[in-house]
């Protein structure tokens, strides 16, 4: 038995937090109390073997995926490979691009199998798997995010705070977050409300069941310069892989203001080997920002046509580009690109909430 894994209810006594090594999950189920309990129990029983399973095949999972390559053993590893395989023919990608989404999906699947839930989500560090029963919906908020320069944290120390905070609200470097309407301290809500610029409602009839965010400021390395790319897709693993691919495509190759360092200089055992990963982006001209966003949006739109994603929001230096924007439902903000004051905020979808959570 793995005794590293820590599993506990968060102080709101509604959400379950599970942690093992680099995996942090925030889980919330909605339904009858006995079903919630059964779902949490099932999640807690499944979770302790997840990391060991993945690490058994870690070497394989860090290798570039080939379109007709071999399959791994574990169910999560197979989800990862399935999610990245559509990209394998045309681009460099490893199954690790979908690890967070695949873990979230696995746990969500275990929960919905164990109990009848009206709604549920599993948030793996910003990559989120959703369950919606008939007639149910989640509201996902698009939120401005304070420029990381304002938070005087060295990159090494930047990390997700959600294990101990009531709402995992401020991921230190552009990321996504999830909250629900109940049990959230008022002050944090107001913070969210003040910076919220749009919401999208995901309901039962809508195919989206996965949300993921990627960017160079995030916990994983990015080959591109996007601050954050948030993707809505049918599964969390698909969203995770696509967010990585789109964020890589938001780029200005050879631009002098972009600082790139070989990934293995930073992390000797990274799956990206010596590929240059973005470590800093200087201030860009508006036309440069649009050029980079257009490159990413082109890829995103292609993925949308292929059915790999439903929508994406691309963010770079306070500029946001939406793809499949019908799915983001930003009715109140009918502008193609939303501009904020320079250096004050960036826009990332920051959460799902139960009905009307943000508008209280």
């Amino acid at each position, binding site marked *: 038995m793995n005794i590293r894994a820590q599993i506990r*209810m968060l102080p709101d006594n509604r959400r379950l937090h599970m942690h093992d090594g680099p995996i942090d999950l925030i889980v919330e189920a909605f339904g009858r109390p006995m079903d919630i309990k059964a779902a949490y129990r099932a999640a807690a029983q499944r979770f302790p073997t997840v990391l060991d399973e993945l690490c058994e095949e870690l070497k394989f999972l860090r290798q570039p995926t080939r379109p007709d390559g071999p399959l791994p053993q574990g169910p999560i590893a197979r989800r990862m490979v399935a999610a990245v395989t559509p990209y394998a023919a045309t681009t460099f990608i490893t199954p690790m691009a979908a690890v967070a989404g695949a873990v979230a999906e696995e746990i969500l699947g275990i929960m919905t199998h164990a109990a009848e839930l009206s709604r549920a989500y599993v948030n793996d560090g910003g990559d989120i798997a959703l369950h919606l029963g008939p007639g149910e919906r989640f509201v996902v908020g698009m939120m401005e995010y304070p420029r990381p320069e304002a938070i005087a944290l060295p990159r*090494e120390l930047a990390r997700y705070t959600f294990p*101990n*905070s009531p709402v995992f609200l401020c991921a230190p470097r552009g990321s996504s977050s999830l909250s629900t309407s109940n049990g959230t301290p008022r002050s944090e809500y107001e913070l969210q409300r003040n910076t919220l610029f749009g919401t999208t409602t995901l309901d039962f009839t809508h195919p989206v069941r996965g949300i993921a965010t990627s960017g160079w400021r995030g916990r994983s390395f990015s080959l591109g310069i996007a601050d954050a790319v948030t993707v809505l897709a049918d599964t969390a693993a698909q969203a995770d892989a696509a967010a990585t691919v789109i964020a890589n495509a938001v780029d200005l190759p050879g631009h002098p203001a972009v600082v790139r360092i070989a990934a293995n200089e930073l992390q000797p055992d990274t799956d990206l080997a010596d590929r240059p990963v973005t470590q800093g982006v200087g201030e860009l001209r508006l036309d440069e920002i649009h050029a980079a966003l257009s490159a990413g949006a082109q890829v995103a739109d292609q993925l949308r046509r292929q059915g790999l994603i439903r929508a994406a929001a691309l963010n770079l230096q306070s500029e946001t580009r939406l793809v499949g924007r019908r799915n983001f439902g930003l009715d109140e903000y009918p502008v193609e690109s939303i501009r904020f004051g320079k250096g004050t905020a960036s826009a990332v979808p920051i959460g799902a909430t139960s009905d009307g959570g943000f508008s209280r």
Partner: protein
Amino acid sequence: MADDAIRCDACPVLCYIKPGRTGSCDRYGNHDGQLVRLDPHVMLERAQSRGESLVPFLGKSREWDGNLVNDAQTFVTAIGAGTTYPDYKPAPFIISSQVQGVDMVTVVTEGIFSYCGVKLKIDTDRHLGAECSIVRAQGEAVGHVTTSEYGSQMLSLGGVRHLTGGSRHEGTVTCDTLLHLCNGKAVELQIDNGAKVVVQAGKAPIVDGMQEERMRVGCGSATIGMFAKQWFGKVDEVVVVDDHITGVLSEHQAGKLLDIPETGIKMKGRRSTPGRYFKVAEPGTSWGGTNITDPLSILAPFDPEVAKPGLRLLMVSTTGEQYAYYELDDALRPVERNLPPSLQESVARIRENCEPALCTVLFMGGAGGSLRAGVTENPVKLTLSVRDALTRVTSGGAPVYVWPGGGITYMVDVSRMPENAFGYVPTPALVAPIEFTMKLDDYAALGGHMDHVRPLHSIHRADDGSRRVAPREGNPWPLSAGKSGRE
């Protein structure tokens, strides 16, 4: 592999981490060639002049105001600190601070306790179950009824036999029950051949659906002793119904001293000494912890040689919650009447002398070998240091009682700890915070991990994800001078 990178073996990912960087978890980092842990956890902040208790601070959403932590005012608890169990590694946090010019060290870790449980004190005289009866939660055995105390029934829950010695489900349910109780949640327990009771730390117990209000003022005999004088002249006979010792005023020593005449009352049950009766009825959840609902059922017919028509009889329980007043008719049968105003006061006084009935939960656990190894290379020295009162043990900043004898087996009142201080691992076992505080030179002397000691302000700098809470009112400040928990 790269010269200056270190391999982190905290989990099977086994990251190589370069200096100044973290592994893939962002929790462990390479700080000048040392593997260090950067984890949010709970700090107690001494709230001066503020009466509030336990205010969770906003996490990262509040920016650091640039102030350095004032050492003596901040105590780092082990809640959320994590653990290095079962490794030989130093504890996650070993923190130095200065208190009144003395260098202190606090070793902070979360213990994983298989040998642990709770001692549950339920203030009630109602019979919950026979001693040694099995206590169940969700149908699984999670503990047993142990020896009762004055005015309280005691349950002993958890322990290694239920946690890991029984079926998987028994262990899971036991762990769940302990976790809920320790985190201040309500739990429903069913005692074999006994009551169903809902318990929650700091709240009144609910026995078979009835919320307990008050503890008894004393046993039936003691109640007679306390109130004899107040009854004198207002009533001819008083019976205080109690499952333990039922008292009868006219026969009791207190009545004799007041020259109260015989009344011809005949009690059922077994007479212990004059005016004191055992076993007037079976244990139960009604009058005075017995099973009776009609108090007359514990009386035999009055002695016609002694009793007189019109004799006034008060029957009352040890909490004053139940009472009845009778007068004998011509056939010497008690007939119920309204309680005269002159007696209402004494019944009310019994009630008001009964303290509110509460459930109290003490967590009890033994800090074993490897936990101690996180503190010192020579674990027994920690035990000896605790015994010699050189090292203070706290749990989430709350004072503990350390049992005499071998090992570090301690008890802590969970209501004195910050909220949700406990977690669990799927073993199943409970995760509880534990901190060892001692003078820096004492720490060196007991073979501490001196190279892992770091100043308090370094925690603050590295980590604004910590949760800062005000200490519970009434707790001694963990860093203040004074003896350890072994007092």
